[in-house]
């Protein structure tokens, strides 16, 4: 994976979140869960979006809030699942 891929992943996820949550911006390290930005419904919607968009599957072993707590964490998780 290249640096451009990483940026594309982050911006794709950011755009999805901003299109679904009533916020004007999200910083790369904003904690999505502690800040109350997302609820449990959006959690599974975000998971589904990531699975579909990046052709990965989130399984039981991936159930770790560290993987999805922020834009940076989610980007790193997608890169890891893609062998990056």
């Amino acid at each position, binding site marked *: 994976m290249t640096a451009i891929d990483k940026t594309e992943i982050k911006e794709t996820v950011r755009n999805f979140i901003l*299109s679904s949550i009533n916020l004007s911006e999200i910083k790369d390290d904003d904690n999505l869960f502690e800040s109350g930005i997302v609820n449990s419904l959006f959690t*599974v*919607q975000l998971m589904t979006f990531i699975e579909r968009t990046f052709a990965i599957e989130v399984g*039981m072993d991936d159930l770790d809030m560290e993987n999805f707590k922020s834009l940076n964490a989610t980007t790193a998780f997608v890169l890891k699942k893609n062998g990056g």
Partner: protein
Amino acid sequence: MVANVLRKPRLVSRTQAEARDQRLKVELQTVPDAQQALADVHKARHKEFKTFVADNVEPFAEQWDREQQLPEAILAKLAQWGYLGCSVPAEYDGQGWDVVTFGLLNEALGRGSSALTDVLTVQAMVSMTLLKWGSAEQKHQWLPPLARGEMIAAFAMTEPGTGSDLQSLATGLSAQGGHFILHGTKRWISCAQFAGVFLVFGKLEQHPVACLVPRESPGFRIEPITDLMGLRAAGLGQLHFENVKVPTANLVGKPGFALSHVAPVGLHHGRISAACSALGLLRGCFEESIAHAAKRKIGNKTVGEMGMIRSLIARMGTDLEAARLLCHGACRAEDEHSPEAFEKTFMAKYFTSRAAVRAASDAVQIRGASGCHAASPTSRFYRDAKIMEIIEGTTQIHEDILGKIFVDQAGRFGK
């Protein structure tokens, strides 16, 4: 292609078959647009499902409702035809059908019996949860018997003190040696009276967890709940767990994720099933109403020639078409693994269950006194429809969630 999906023998008389085929022909002509949106394979399967319901469900649904019990024979038939594992992949002995087909099956069964469809609902809730979050060992142990219909599953979430507020679960697990000890009470659990395994939600040191509990577990007692208004044959029960030993291998997902990740998968499939089941009930109200309106005479006019009856039927038929499109759209979105599938399913269940309540009330009104008697399915539809507004999330919970979803989308429009 069509011949391949119609793989089961038909054990009905020629007269029955002719009457059924004529009715199916009328049904297909009633709503051509929605049918055209389906692929040929879906149409063929839908026809198979309707045939199954006409032969095995509709003639007996009133009796099941009256006796508050589903006979083992009908559960065996659901299993024999592969319907209890319709969404489970073939590698686990399921049919591997897509969600559109799952929706059509629920719609067809919902036309015949909401109580029987509830079995399909909870079987799918547990099976799809295991498919997503189960370990490899759990999938291989539990999915094949569930998919083959050798075992019925139940989804044990609701508690006496916990309805829609899932965060306040009181059922608890505590670690002891190499296993957990489960204690607590669950109420209003569909299929509890005959399920072989229960997916139970509780808390382990304040972390939400989900675990599989076999029916025969020592300390696990099931108390039947009877005399419900609707879904009377769905085998509801209250579950009592008194120091039940649960192997650690039976935890589904990781502690802390049961409410945020595990339950939403099951509830989502439950909502798809409930929406499509309500759609079948709505179709039943419509078909019963137009048949009555066309035949029943008051003086020298049929009921269908009266303007106020036409108004009721117009609303019902339009609601049916709208509900059909919403349900099929939700199923298609789920087949595409779209994140929009969740809100589409909320909308489908919200609209269809409310439309079913309106239609059932109007269907009874159109039939008059005969609609209030068990000789007409409309009296059962009326009672079952109200339950559809409550199961898998009440109408008010749907409004709260959908309202938030829509307001949060303001950013999409640059506002």
